[in-house]
């Protein structure tokens, strides 16, 4: 193994994704523009134009076709990538099921953007979380470095379990914000991520076969079970690949939930994506002020890190779940999932849902502090004031 000397580049989250696609030696990219995803594909096109990447680029006429073409490419044995956001992801929905159903390890970056109407191009997790049940793995990146690392790991994990994976970054907060990213020299990426070995290959004519044919009630059920099983198996693969990544490149992703100050915390903030950067900073400050708080950053939402969450629940009195998303008629989606996981355990800390930052509303360190105050009161009182709070709602 060659010695790892990172190449530092100041890039946007979108460019970090594009570099990862290049380094992953993706063979086919089919994509359609949408703000704020567009610059991922533009950068990839630039790599191709400059002769820096050998990629077949299919400029499709819609996101539905972007996913369909990626599926075709993947079924024909290629490493395939696409990227989108919000309305584009919603338009892909039908085909997301097709990718997982046909067991194709397509990797996609979704730039989290609010759904219209009203039109909004800003950050919100509802687009990706609406795809929860499509059989896609979901990785939420906190910063540009995690976008880059996430794409590389996603390919390895997806191609091991034969399920597609989504790497999710925030609109503008990451997609268009420049930061230092440590990139990995090509030959080391190649060692980490060898060429894909497809589960099946449409270009193999040794005997005729069909994919996706009618499955009657006698067979369909087992097909679903195999996806369920693959998703379960993915937990170990994710941890192993995350650990390997840490050993090779110094950034460890073996935890599906990244934890900080959890062991002696009264309560923790839990959430996903870039807002956890703000939370981590706030926790450092709050700790200095004597608050016994910690954080739990959920990296992988699918498969859901049940065991790790249960462990956290055993040691804390409360969990403040921060959701930059909402499921109408119910509550925040991460909150909803977390409560479900904790029901069948003895450890049932107080768990409260804060809806924050929808559609790009600023979410800042003072906001975290205000939530800490409220959470502290709730824990002292030993009961919830309310289960779901729309934080910073204009009255």
């Amino acid at each position, binding site marked *: 193994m060659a010695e790892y000397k990172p190449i530092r580049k100041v890039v946007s989250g979108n460019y970090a994704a594009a570099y990862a696609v290049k380094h992953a030696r993706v063979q086919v990219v089919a994509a359609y523009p949408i703000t704020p995803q567009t610059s991922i594909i533009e950068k990839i096109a630039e790599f191709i134009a400059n002769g820096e990447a050998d990629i077949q680029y*299919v400029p499709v*006429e819609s996101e539905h076709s*972007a996913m*369909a073409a990626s599926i075709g490419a993947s079924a*024909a044995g290629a490493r395939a990538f696409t990227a989108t956001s919000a309305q584009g992801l919603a338009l892909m929905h039908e085909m997301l099921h097709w990718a997982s159903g046909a067991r194709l390890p397509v990797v996609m970056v979704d730039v989290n953007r609010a759904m219209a109407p009203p039109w909004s191009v800003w950050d919100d997790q509802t687009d990706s979380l609406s795809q929860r049940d499509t059989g896609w793995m979901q990785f939420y990146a906190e910063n540009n470095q995690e976008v880059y690392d996430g794409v590389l790991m996603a390919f390895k994990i997806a191609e091991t379990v034969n399920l597609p994976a989504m790497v999710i970054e925030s609109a503008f907060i990451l997609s268009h914000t420049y930061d230092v990213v440590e990139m990995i020299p090509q030959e080391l990426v190649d060692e980490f991520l060898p060429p894909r070995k497809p589960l099946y290959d449409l*270009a193999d*004519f040794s005997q005729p*076969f069909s994919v996706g044919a009618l*499955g009657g009630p006698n067979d369909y059920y087992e097909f679903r079970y195999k996806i369920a099983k693959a998703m379960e198996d993915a937990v170990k693969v994710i941890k192993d690949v995350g650990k390997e990544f840490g050993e090779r490149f110094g950034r460890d992703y073996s935890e599906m939930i990244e934890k900080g100050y959890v062991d002696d915390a009264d309560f923790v903030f839990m959430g996903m994506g870039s807002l956890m950067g703000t939370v981590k900073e706030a926790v450092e400050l709050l700790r200095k002020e004597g608050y016994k708080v910690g954080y739990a950053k959920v990296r992988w939402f699918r498969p859901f890190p049940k065991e790790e969450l249960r462990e956290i629940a055993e040691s804390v009195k409360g969990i403040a779940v921060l959701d930059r998303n909402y499921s109408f008629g119910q509550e925040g989606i991460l909150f909803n999932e977390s409560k479900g996981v904790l029901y069948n355990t003895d450890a049932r800390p107080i768990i409260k849902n804060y809806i924050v930052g929808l559609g790009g509303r600023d979410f800042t360190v003072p906001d975290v502090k205000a939530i800490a105050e409220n959470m502290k009161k709730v824990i002292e009182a030993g009961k919830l004031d309310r289960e779901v709070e729309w934080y910073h709602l204009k009255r």
Partner: protein
Amino acid sequence: MEIPENVRKRLSIPAEEHFFAGHTACQGCGASLGIRYVLKAYGRKTIFVIPACCSTIIAGPWPYTALDANLFHTAFETTGAVISGIEAALKARGIKVKGDDGVMVVGWAGDGGTADIGLQALSGFLERGHDAVYIMYDNEAYMNTGIQRSSSTPYGAWTTNTPGGKRHFLEKRHKKKVIDIVIAHEVPYAATASVAFPEDFIRKLKKARKVEGPAFIQLFAPCPTGWRSPTDKSIEIARLAVQTAYFPLFEYENGKYKINMPSPKKEPKPIEEFLKLQGRFKYMTKEDIENLQSWVLREWEKLKKLAEVFG
């Protein structure tokens, strides 16, 4: 039996079979004949892409396949996009496509999946110029969901959502000219074909294999179930569609039009001959038939002009 030399010379249809017995099409199904001919023309090294339609079922349920080729089933509206992705992947992997010995990527979709819901993906495929062949088998309705109209359903036809009845709720629009839309993309090759003329169809398939870029064939494929026609009349009906100029056979190649059948000099037979064999037209009034007849002749004149000027 020994085939006499003079007959053998005329047989241009390959003898090999790549479409297995045991497929699940109805008796007299034009689409199933179409699949058989495509496989005869292209052989084993073919990747078929079939969206939701009758052919999904014809190919057979998991784990069976009636096709001696590889088959990817896909969503209704995605044929054009999926064949684009497959072609891109083969190129990325350095696998030869088309030509004499390359892999054939074939989109095989119904009129519904082509003229309606899949038109956008078809357009994208054509416009981007992928090396694949798209075949629309035209049975003039959505058969798989139980005979509903498509934009390729002819004027005056009964379907389950244009059921005729007292208020004369029959299909009121003429057939969408998908081939014209295709040609508007300035594709290298587009043609109409019919299961009643397999030699012509296979010749066109072979031509489609040779051209660089996308090729499109609209194949007339009778459906006895949906057309309310006797199962042994499919070929006769398909032949009459050509002879009446209701569905003329022609090719468009690099800007040039060529009529194959019927002879441009011959007068088309009256449209009634085509209509009378099919129950789906039985609600048509005299005016309806006249209306359809004049549309057919108008379109036929148009095609003849095109062949004359751009021949």
